[in-house]
């Protein structure tokens, strides 16, 4: 039987030995621990929190922010077993092949792996999210009984699908901690330490090997963990903090010889009510408006720019969602009546819906996390986020919406109104996906990133990162199922690498 150990009971000065030490018990850490269960590896999982929310532990996530409006660093994450899956939305969708490609019009694009390298891991990743069979773009075949996708004419926008983590009454959707605690306990060579905060990566003098992880509890205990491989799975903000703060050997921070750690922070802006969708013939199919359960999957349709449109028009990914009904003003009524009449279409039953979306942002080295001189209750330096969004990101998304409008008119089924234009208007409507990404980006060349294609920190032989911090570009897909696919690939790698 595996053990759940309260780190506050571990005597100070203890050294715990393991083959693999995982820092963080969110979806990434839990999935990695379970994926290593069928190996001979002795695994230790170090989780900062307990089984439920604790305010003192949560306050370790405090930091500051400047720049574009953004969620506070403390509010957008949860620091206990299960991590931010304790308040995630359960939306799932794999990235597209184009998201991995180097695109000359998209600065800093190009992953050192392709989508094909990940494909075989999505079934298991999906299973971990309890999101049922993978249908995604084949979903139209199984949703015929519910409704028809919009008959959009040829063009850049197509109906594509999200799937959702299983909804149930007590765990809604999959909260990885609560859901998998029982499974973790069944793994014989795994020890899960709760209330165990990793505060420092202790490197050898040449900075090429992690000799030990320093662990501290909020009640003052200090011990360390020595492992053949250490995997940072503490979320994209905290992984950067751990690397930057572990700077006693390499002054710029561990893995930061090229000043890349903490740079390229990203999230998906979610501008609310950014457009109005008019459908002359009436309501869209129910799967556009909310989740529908069929064939053992929970599905929702969105409107996405195709990979071809993205390449041809040099636009980033986005996922347009159809939201609640809206009323039109006098100009809107005039525009709909005039356009429908001119197109020879009856708009007596027209429907009007607000559009939402998740947008990809351009990778930006100056959208970054840095350490401040303020310290948390464990003495660790806090982070400051400098948030920025390029105006062209909004412009490109607007171009995508315009393409939707074009197709609706060409197919004589509807039209679109764009609600936002100026930067202030976009900012005023801005919400966020809370999808932290990019701070330890993957790269073939150590000069351009922090981890290699196997998620190993460049030049630190036994240090890995698991999570969306390794995404060099972000797509518009929700990150969790994708980061889990990467984690499952890492598990395979670790099993091969470690004797």
């Amino acid at each position, binding site marked *: 039987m595996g053990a759940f150990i309260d780190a506050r009971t571990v005597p100070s000065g203890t050294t715990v030995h393991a083959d693999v030490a995982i820092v963080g018990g969110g979806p990434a850490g839990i999935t990695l621990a379970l994926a290593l269960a069928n190996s001979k590896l002795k695994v230790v999982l170090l989780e900062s929190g307990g089984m439920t929310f604790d305010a003192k532990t949560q306050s370790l996530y405090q930091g500051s922010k400047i720049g574009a409006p953004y969620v506070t660093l403390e509010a957008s994450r949860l620091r206990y077993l299960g991590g931010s899956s304790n308040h995630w939305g359960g939306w799932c969708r794999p990235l597209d092949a184009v998201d991995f490609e180097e695109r000359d019009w998209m600065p800093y694009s190009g992953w050192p792996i392709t989508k094909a390298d990940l494909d075989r891991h999505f079934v298991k990743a999906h299973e971990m999210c309890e999101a049922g069979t993978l249908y995604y773009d084949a979903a139209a075949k199984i949703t015929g009984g519910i409704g028809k996708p919009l008959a959009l004419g040829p063009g850049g926008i197509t109906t594509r699908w999200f799937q959702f983590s299983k909804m149930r009454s007590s765990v809604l959707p999959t909260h990885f901690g609560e859901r998998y605690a029982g499974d973790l306990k069944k793994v014989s060579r795994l020890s899960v330490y709760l209330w165990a905060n990793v505060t420092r990566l202790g490197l050898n003098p040449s900075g090429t090997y992690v000799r030990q992880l320093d662990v501290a509890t909020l009640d003052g205990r200090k011990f360390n963990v020595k492992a053949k491989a250490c995997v940072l799975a503490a979320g994209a903000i905290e992984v950067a903090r751990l690397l930057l703060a572990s700077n006693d050997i390499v002054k710029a921070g561990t893995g930061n010889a090229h000043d890349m750690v903490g740079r390229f922070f990203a999230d998906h802006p979610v501008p609310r009510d950014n457009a109005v969708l008019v459908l002359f013939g009436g309501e869209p199919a129910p799967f556009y408006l909310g989740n529908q359960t069929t064939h053992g999957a929970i599905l929702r349709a969105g409107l996405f720019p195709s990979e071809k449109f993205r390449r041809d028009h040099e636009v980033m990914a986005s996922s347009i969602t159809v939201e609640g009904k809206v009323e039109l003003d006098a100009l809107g009524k*005039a*525009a709909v*009546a005039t*356009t429908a009449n*001119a*197109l020879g279409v009856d708009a007596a039953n027209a429907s009007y819906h607000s559009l939402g979306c998740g947008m990809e942002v351009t990778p930006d080295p100056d959208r970054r996390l840095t350490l401040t001189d303020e310290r948390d209750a464990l003495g660790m330096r806090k982070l400051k986020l400098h948030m920025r969004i390029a105006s062209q990101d909004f412009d490109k998304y607007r171009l995508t919406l315009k393409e939707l409008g074009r197709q609706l*008119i060409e197919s004589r089924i509807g*039209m679109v*109104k764009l*609600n936002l234009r100026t930067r202030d208007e976009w900012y005023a409507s801005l919400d966020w996906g809370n999808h932290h990404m990019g701070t330890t980006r993957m790269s073939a060349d150590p000069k351009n990133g922090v981890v290699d294609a196997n998620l190993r920190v460049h030049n630190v032989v036994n240090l890995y990162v698991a999570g969306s911090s390794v995404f060099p570009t972000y797509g518009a897909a929700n990150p969790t199922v994708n980061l889990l696919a990467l984690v499952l690939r890492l598990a395979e790698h670790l099993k091969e690498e470690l004797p």
Partner: protein
Amino acid sequence: MKTVSRRQTIWLGGAAAVLVAGGVGGRMLLRKRYAPTPYDDLIALVHDRDAAAQIGETVLAEVEDFEPIARAVSLRSRIAGRPLAVALTEDAAKGRLVEGGGWVLPETLGLICALAAKAAG
């Protein structure tokens, strides 16, 4: 029984004529008059000229150097006597769009609306 004199009959008849004019013909008389323009043929393609003018005001805010006569000439040759709906779907197919107050419109329709706005003064 009170009889109606010839004089009264004439008066009532005249009143009836006034009523008819006020009820039916009056609608014509009260109808908003627009000064004729050299592009009335294009404006006539949209069903509600006032609505078109309202949209057109917002289109004019987006379009630079809007010269009505020249626009009308090019719109006529673009429409080429075809039904307006055909010209509009062709606009969309060719990516010819214009915005008015955020509404994404086929360019031909947006520009006709702009002409209606110009005509409304």
